Structure formats: structure tokens, C-alpha cells
């Protein structure tokens, strides 16, 4: 199709503001998919996505729409992840678009990720169409929300009012896309340049690259070259999403679709790479993406040592569809062989954990998350440490730096005090407070990521009855007085329980952690001392007293079988414990530090 009739756009929103529901309405309205076919929220394809009500992977769908001007348009909707953990993926999707629909909930107003996503879209130079959604709700206040939207810099008269749930305003949204989103400006006659904005692995077609054709055209059978990796292949198939894969002979400049590459390894076809023709390569690649940078790290260990190869295979397979997952083998004294994994954030970590457990049926144990510290050694060497157990001895370190985040919180004004208190306790520094309206403020802070990943979001939500919203992004590495806190169980240091913390907090955290472990570790046949230590200095001590009673009272009229089954059940239960030395430690203990604060 002629580029002037193509519109490439995405929908961005704060979580739960109705992004997916609006996408469904657009697909339905344009007849891309019938109501009957509409499995609930078609764009969120992973089970986990549906369950958590979020989008994790980017998706793209082509729609045909006959506008009020009588002409037919090709609209490509590229879905974007809605969680801050995945803002990296959002920016990837944005690079394939010329416009963005910014959805704002009529009952909630502008939230932290509304703003964060808006900034990303503005940075990508997109046309923005503000849509106020959920106007049918009794508590909707479109006037007030329109004012907020105006305050964040968008023209008030371009706002579309809609209720995706009720199908109100759907046509207006489509018209606005046609009117305000500029058509792509690629050069059809130039050598092929296609941007890979996502990929997934298919057992039959190999790696399927989701692409935006910037210049030129691509057809089935073309020999292609990946400009960064230099990998070459023959195109098995090209096509678009409607919403399932539909083969088409050719994709031309301005269009969005897929290429079945036949590559067996995603490494050959990396997100952000530029596809060109091997015969007539483009002179210059497109500006790709920086590789995703993992922010949160944790050890993943099989509960049964024998499962190690299965865990490795599962991670390899997850990696095929999730380039942002990184991992390397780790050997823990306490937990044996496993992997140190890097994640985009806590949600990403949780999703990987759940997928390993559900899709691969693995019994895994995760250590508490850590961040990546920058250590300058006295010999001048620079190290990045994301496993507390690997922190060099104090005498070898010239300084330690930790990642500091810019954090942004939208909240009703009445919670300012409690948020201030929470952030200060987490070593946060206040930067700015801006009143959006009389009773709503936008707070900005700088805070160590290490403090942010420990239960901060849950605390923020619970202290503000769920009203506050949060967004954050990396600011810089800064030096801090950090120490390693070790936990000794039965006199033996358990590496998987070590953590890096600020010196001022070590005492209190050590005490809380020892207390918590005392509750979590079941009584054993002998007394088990639990100690917290910084260096060789013991800062807290607790004792798990020896078990006193575990015996069945009765013989049940000769029912020995039942007695035996009960014992077998007890025995099975013990398998869920991890043996460290001679002590059996339950899995929750390794996550204990997450629930230490503010009980």
C-alpha cells in the first residue's frame, strides 16, 4: 500500500488504565477480529500476561480501516509493555511507530507511568493522541483529567473521550490516528533497511523477527543479512499479524510485519539489528537499541541438585523469547550449582520464576535479589559485583558504588508525610514536589536501587491505600558506605544469605534477619545458633532450640500402613528443605530479607 495510507502507532498507558481493552475495541471495530473470535484481550498472549493484567512482549497487528474521508488505511498497532520493568521494550516499540495513543483513566488521572511513557514517546518524536478512557464510570471526572493532561503539555482540544469497555469513542480514536499520526516517510527505492523490534522463536520457522520496514522492500526467498551480527539466511516467509501470522508476498517501506528467518538461534537475529539484502546491502545500519541492561540479580538453584541440567535447558529456552534475561553459572557453597540471573526488574524476575515453575515444572529456589555494585579495588582494578558472596575483602576495596535511581511518585497530597518517611528510611533524597492540582502532587527523589528492590513498591502501595503510583529510571553510580552482612547458621556462613547493605543499617538488618530466620528454620534435632556478622564482628545472635516432640501417639487399631504414610509425608516435606551443613533450611529463608522492613 502507498505509504500515505499507512499509520504505525502504539498505545501507551499507566497500568490498568485500559490499554488492552482499547486495543480489543479497535480490532473489533475494524473487523480484524470478530467479537466471537475475541478471546479476551487478544494482544496479551501469554497466560501470565492475562493473569497479571499486563503486557510483557510487544505484539503487532495490522488493521484495515475506511476513514470518514472514504479512503482505506492500513493501521499497524504495536502493543507495548505496561510495566516500568519493561520500559526498555516500550522504547523499542516506539521506534517502529510514528504516533502513540496515550490512554488516561478518567477516574485516576495522570499517573507515574503515564508521564514516563509520554516522555519516551516525545523522545522518540511521536505524534501523541491523548485519550481519556472509562468515561462511563460514575466516578469519572473527564474535565479534571483533561486539565491534568493539559498540564503535562498536550493540547486540550485534541483529547478523545472514550470508554473502551462500552465501545464509546472507538471511531473517534481511529479518526484521530488517521488525522494526527503522520504517514511513514521511508524510501521505497532505497536498499532494504528493516528494524527488528522484537522476536520470538518458532520450532518450525526458526526465529521470527518482528520488523518495521524503514526503506526498500523484502520478499519471500530474498537473501538477507543482519547488519550487526553478519548472519545471513534466506527468508522463508514474510507477512503481517491479523492478529495471527498471515503470509504476504512482500513487505514494503513503512509497513510493519514479520520475517520468518529460519535462524535456529536468536543470537543470529538480535532485537535492534537492521535487516538488509545480501545482494544490495544498505550502506548504513539504523540506529539500533542499547542492549537491555539487567538491574536486578538473583541466584536460581534447583531444589534437587539433579535438576540442574533441566534448569539450564529451561533458561536457554526462555532466553529464546526473552533477550533481556541474562544468566551465568553460579556455584554456592550452601546451595550447590545454579545460575546467577539478571532481570530488568522485580516483576521480570517474578515472571521468570513463575514460568520456570509452571511451564517447566521445576522446583527452584531463589535467593534474595541484589543489584550490581561497582567496586574499585586498591590495586586499581574495577569490578561489577552482583552477588554479595563475591564482594572482595574490605582491605582490598578502595570504594564501592551503588546504582542510584530517579524515582517519580504521583500521589494524593495527604500521603506526602508517609511517603517522605518511607523514602528517607530507604536512604532516599528529596528532589522536587510539584502540585498537579490542589490535592495531587508529583514527588521526585533519588534513591539507591538496592533499597528500591526490597519491598518498596508494596510498602508504597500499602501506605497510600494503593493511590500512589511509581516510576523509576537509572540515574548514576554513587559511592556509599556499604558493608557485607553475613549470616551464620550453626557456626557456618551461608553464602546465599549474605547481603550488601549500608553500614548504618547493618545492625538493625542483622538483628531482624536473625530473628526472622529463627522463625523460619524449623527446630532440628540439635540447638542451632543463628548469627549475623559484619566481617568478624557478630552483631546479632538467635537460637533455634532443639526439637522436643515428634512422635505419633497411637497405633490406630493396627493400621500400620497409615502410620507409615504419615511418616512418608513428613519425609517428603523435608525434601522441600535445603540442607546446609547439617541444618535443614526452608526455601523462604533465602528470601527472608525481602520481608524484613517495617513490619
Amino acid at each position, binding site marked *: 500500500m502507498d505509504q500515505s495510507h499507512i499509520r504505525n502507532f502504539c498505545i501507551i498507558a499507566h497500568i490498568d488504565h485500559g490499554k488492552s481493552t482499547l486495543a480489543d475495541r479497535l480490532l473489533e471495530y475494524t473487523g480484524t477480529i470478530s467479537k466471537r473470535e475475541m478471546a479476551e484481550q487478544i494482544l496479551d498472549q501469554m497466560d501470565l500476561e492475562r493473569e497479571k493484567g499486563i503486557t510483557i512482549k510487544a505484539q503487532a497487528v495490522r488493521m484495515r480501516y475506511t476513514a470518514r474521508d472514504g479512503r482505506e488505511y492500513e493501521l499497524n498497532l504495536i502493543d507495548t509493555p505496561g510495566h516500568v520493568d519493561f520500559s526498555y521494550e516500550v522504547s523499542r516499540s516506539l521506534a517502529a511507530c510514528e504516533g502513540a495513543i496515550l490512554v488516561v483513566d478518567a477516574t485516576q488521572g495522570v499517573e507515574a507511568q503515564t508521564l514516563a511513557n509520554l516522555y519516551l514517546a516525545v523522545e522518540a518524536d511521536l505524534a501523541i493522541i491523548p485519550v481519556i478512557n472509562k468515561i462511563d464510570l460514575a466516578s469519572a471526572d473527564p474535565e479534571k483529567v483533561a486539565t491534568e493532561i493539559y498540564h503535562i503539555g498536550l493540547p486540550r482540544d485534541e483529547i478523545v473521550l472514550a470508554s473502551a469497555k462500552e465501545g464509546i469513542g472507538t471511531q473517534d480514536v481511529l479518526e484521530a490516528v488517521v488525522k494526527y499520526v503522520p504517514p511513514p516517510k521511508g524510501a521505497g527505492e532505497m536498499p532494504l533497511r528493516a528494524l527488528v523490534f522484537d522476536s520470538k522463536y518458532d520450532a518450525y520457522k526458526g526465529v521470527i523477527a518482528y520488523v518495521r520496514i524503514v526503506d526498500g522492500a523484502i520478499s519471500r526467498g530474498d537473501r538477507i543479512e543482519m547488519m550487526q551480527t553478519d548472519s545471513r539466511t534466506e527468508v522463508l516467509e514474510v507477512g503481517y499479524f491479523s492478529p495471527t501470522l498471515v503470509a504476504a508476498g512482500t513487505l514494503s517501506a513503512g509497513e510493519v510485519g514479520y520475517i520468518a528467518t529460519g535462524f535456529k538461534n536468536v543470537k543470529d537475529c538480535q532485537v535492534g539489528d537492521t535487516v538488509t539484502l545480501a545482494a544490495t546491502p544498505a550502506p548504513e545500519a539504523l540506529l539500533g537499541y542499547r542492549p537491555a541492561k539487567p538491574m536486578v540479580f538473583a541466584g536460581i538453584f534447583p531444589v534437587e541438585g539433579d535438576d540442574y541440567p533441566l534448569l539450564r535447558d529451561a533458561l536457554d529456552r526462555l532466553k529464546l523469547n526473552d533477550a533481556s534475561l541474562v544468566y551465568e553459572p553460579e556455584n554456592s557453597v550452601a546451595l550447590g550449582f545454579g545460575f546467577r540471573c539478571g532481570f530488568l526488574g522485580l516483576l521480570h524476575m517474578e515472571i521468570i520464576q513463575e514460568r520456570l515453575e509452571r511451564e517447566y515444572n521445576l522446583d527452584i529456589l531463589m535467593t534474595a535479589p541484589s543489584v550490581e555494585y561497582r567496586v574499585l579495588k586498591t590495586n586499581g582494578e574495577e569490578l561489577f559485583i552482583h552477588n554479595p558472596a563475591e564482594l572482595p575483602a574490605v582491605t582490598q576495596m578502595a570504594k564501592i558504588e551503588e546504582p542510584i535511581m530517579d524515582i517519580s511518585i504521583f500521589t494524593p497530597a495527604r500521603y506526602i508525610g508517609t511517603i517522605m518517611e518511607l523514602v528517607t528510611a530507604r536512604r532516599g533524597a528529596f528532589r522536587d514536589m510539584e502540585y498537579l492540582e490542589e490535592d495531587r502532587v508529583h514527588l521526585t527523589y533519588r534513591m539507591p536501587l538496592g533499597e528500591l528492590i526490597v519491598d518498596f513498591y508494596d510498602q508504597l502501595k500499602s501506605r497510600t491505600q494503593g493511590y500512589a503510583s511509581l516510576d523509576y529510571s537509572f540515574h548514576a553510580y554513587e559511592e556509599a558506605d556499604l558493608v557485607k552482612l553475613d549470616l551464620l547458621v550453626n557456626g557456618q556462613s551461608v553464602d546465599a544469605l549474605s547481603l550488601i547493605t549500608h553500614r548504618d543499617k547493618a545492625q538493625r538488618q542483622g538483628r531482624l534477619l536473625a530473628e526472622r530466620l529463627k522463625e523460619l528454620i524449623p*527446630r532440628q534435632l540439635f540447638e542451632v545458633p543463628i548469627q549475623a556478622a559484619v566481617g568478624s564482628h557478630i552483631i546479632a545472635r538467635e537460637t533455634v532450640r532443639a526439637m522436643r*516432640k515428634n512422635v505419633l*501417639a*497411637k497405633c490406630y487399631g*493396627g493400621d*500400620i500402613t497409615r502410620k*507409615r504414610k504419615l*511418616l512418608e509425608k*513428613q*519425609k517428603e516435606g523435608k525434601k522441600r528443605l535445603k540442607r546446609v551443613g547439617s541444618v535443614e533450611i526452608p526455601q523462604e529463608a533465602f528470601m527472608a530479607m525481602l520481608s524484613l522492613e517495617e513490619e
Partner: protein
Amino acid sequence: MAQPSPLAQYVTPPSERLPADPQRLDAEAGRTDVDAQAVDQAGETSDPLLDTISLYLHIPFCHAKCHYCDFNSYAGMLGLRERYVDALLAEIALAGRRSRLPDGAPRRCRTIFFGGGTPSLLTSAQVRALLDAARTHFALDADAEITLEANPGTLEYGHLDELRAAGVNRLSMGAQSFDPALLKWMGRIHTPREIETAFAAARAAGFDSVNLDFIYALPGQSLDTWQRTLDHAAALAPEHLSLYSLIVEEGTPLYTWVSQGRVRPPDDDLAADMYELAEARMAAAGYRHYEVSNWARPGHECRHNLTYWRNLPYIGLGAGAHGWYTGHRYAEARPIREYIARVTATTDASTSLDEHTELPLPAGAVVDDEAIPRELEMAETAMVELRLVEGLRLRAFARRFHTDFQTVFGARLGEVWSAGLLEVEGDMLRLTDRGRLLGNEVFARLLPDTPALS
């Protein structure tokens, strides 16, 4: 990675045998010792008691179901009592036939136990008929121990007198507590006063071997109330006392209450304190602690239960009854009507069938049947024998299984040895005082690592 343990000396049994401990308790009050020694000297390897049985008869009727009880018992079904007894009579006959010795003689039966439910809900005529059937179809010892469980709320002198005359020579009463509030809470139908009355009536009827059951670690029970119950019990001077720690069983009202957080049983420390208090009080009152939960005047140890604890064969008959016979553990149908129907079908059919083609089991309403492999039988034997205070007889174990205990289990018991849960004295391996409260820690380690298929 076998750890050196005091058991090591038994890997190769010493050629000279230690004299039998004269204080030692045995399944047959002295008689087996003689048998066993005779067998030893003859160089034979099997325990003659393995060729005898104990008979368990389950009586599933109750006036009311107690809140903690998950035994196979039913309230409001007394109307089925006659048909049930008929089925039980038929089954005794069947069991007798199927368990005959190779020469066709009936098998020796050493003890009979009427368990429930509430067996005292049977008429004395019914009990007499059942005992007559047992005598007809088994070679019942003249001095067989014949126990009947009774609810103190259902006992009258006349009835007790008739039961005694019918041949019952041991009475086991579910007294449970002397605290009226706790009795009510448990859903018991009797009062503390009725325990005393029933006990006196039993004595008057000539029962000179009486057991009282009590439960401790009840929600709301203090060390103090438990002590009063113990003292009160000791003052009655029964020959035998069973003191059970409350078990919260799935499917009972108590389980629901506990899981909803409406009641909370005492923690393990208090329960352990109660157990240790009981040990002290019972010892002071002249009782001998002979099994985890049982105390007796010397010579009044329950021979029937010793059958379980020595892992000797027993035939269980009745709804939901369990048996252990010819290497099989079996269970019968639990619902009363289903039990009756199955027995009727079996006994009708077997008149025309060659019995040898059927299950090698003596019971007619079998619904579960598990052949116990040798490895498991060794574990089960060790598990139940270690419940006895005197412990497991190492040489008898070696004779029974043609291998010694240390070889089979030594490597798995390192931790419990070093934790001081086990000790060896002479031929006996036993739990220490501390080990008795932690028996499951030892038992679980005895079990084979892969659970038996079931």
C-alpha cells in the same frame, strides 16, 4: 558412609549369647523367651509366634461421634447391629478356614480385641456368640487375653457382669479426662463421675485387668489440669493406662476448628512437658512405662497391642478393620452396609469356590491389599518395635530377616545416633528418654527412600 555406632558389634553376632534379661517383657509374658531360646538352641531361624495370630474385631457403632475422632465409627446406625454381627460371624468362620495350618488344624490365636467405635454397645449375647465362633474356628489359647473397649457412659454392672461371664477378661475404657469442661469440649458423652462409677462396676463384675485411656495436649489444657487427671487416674489404680497426645486428624470437626484458627492445641513444648510429667507421675504410682503411650502394672501389658509392636501377624475383621497376614497388609470396606454386602457375597461364593485361588487373606471384605516387600517389612518391624521402651531385639531381628539391623539401617541413623536418640544395651536397641519423644525422627529414617507404591 556408615558411622561407627554401638550397633557395630552386632554385624557379626557374638558367638556366646547373653543371658536373657529376667526383667524383660515379652509378647507372651515369659513364654516366648523360652520358645525363642529353644529355637536359638535348635539353630532355627523363625519366631514361632509368626505362626500364630491375634484377632481384632471392629465394632463401628457409637452413640455420638467425638470431635477429634476419625476412626471408622458411626452414630445412629445401631439398627444394623444384628446384621453386622451376623456378617462378622460369617467372616470369623471364613478367616478360620482360610488360615488353617498346612495340616488342616485351626491356627493358634493368642488374643482377641474388640475395638471401635464402641464395642460395649454390643449385647453380651452378641459378644458371646462372636467369642464362641472364634473358639470354634481358631485354636484359642485357654488363657487368651480378650479385651473389649468400652465407653464409660454406656456401662452398667449387669452388662459388665455378663461380658465377663462371656469370657471377656480385660476392659479398656475411654476415660479421656477427669476435667468436665474438656470432656464436653471433646464431645464425649460421659462425665468424670461416670468414669468412677463404670470403673467400680467393672471391678465388681470381676474385671481384674482394666485399662483407662486419657488424652493430653488438648486445646485449653494446662499442665495443672493434666496433673489432676493423672493423679485422679492413678488413685483408681487401674492395671493399665494409655496416655495419648491429641492428634488433629484431617476430616474431623477439630481439624476444621484448628485450621480456621478457632482453637489452638498446645505447642510441642507444652505437649512434651505433659508427656514428661506423665512419665514421672506414672513411675511414682508404680506403673511401668512399656510403650511410647502405654503404662502398666508388671504382667498387665496389653498382649494384643504387643502383637502390633512386635510386628506379628494379626487378622482384623469388621468394617474398616486392618490386618497383617502372610506378608500382606489389608483393609476391609469402611462403610457398614458395604462391609455387610461384601462379606455376604464372599462367604456365599466361597462355598463353591476353591479357596486357594482367592486372595491369601483371611478376611472377606478386603478393599485394600498391599504385599509388603521384605525391605519395608524390616523397616516396619523396626519402627513398631522401637516404640517399646525395652526396644528392638537385635538377635530376633537378625533371625527373622537373616540380616542384621546395622547392615540394613546403620548408615541412615548417623544423625539420630549423634543426637542421642538411640542406645544399645545388651541385645536391645532402644530409644532414649529423649528419643521416645522424637520417635518419628528415627522411624522416618528407617523407611525406604522411595515410598512404596500404593
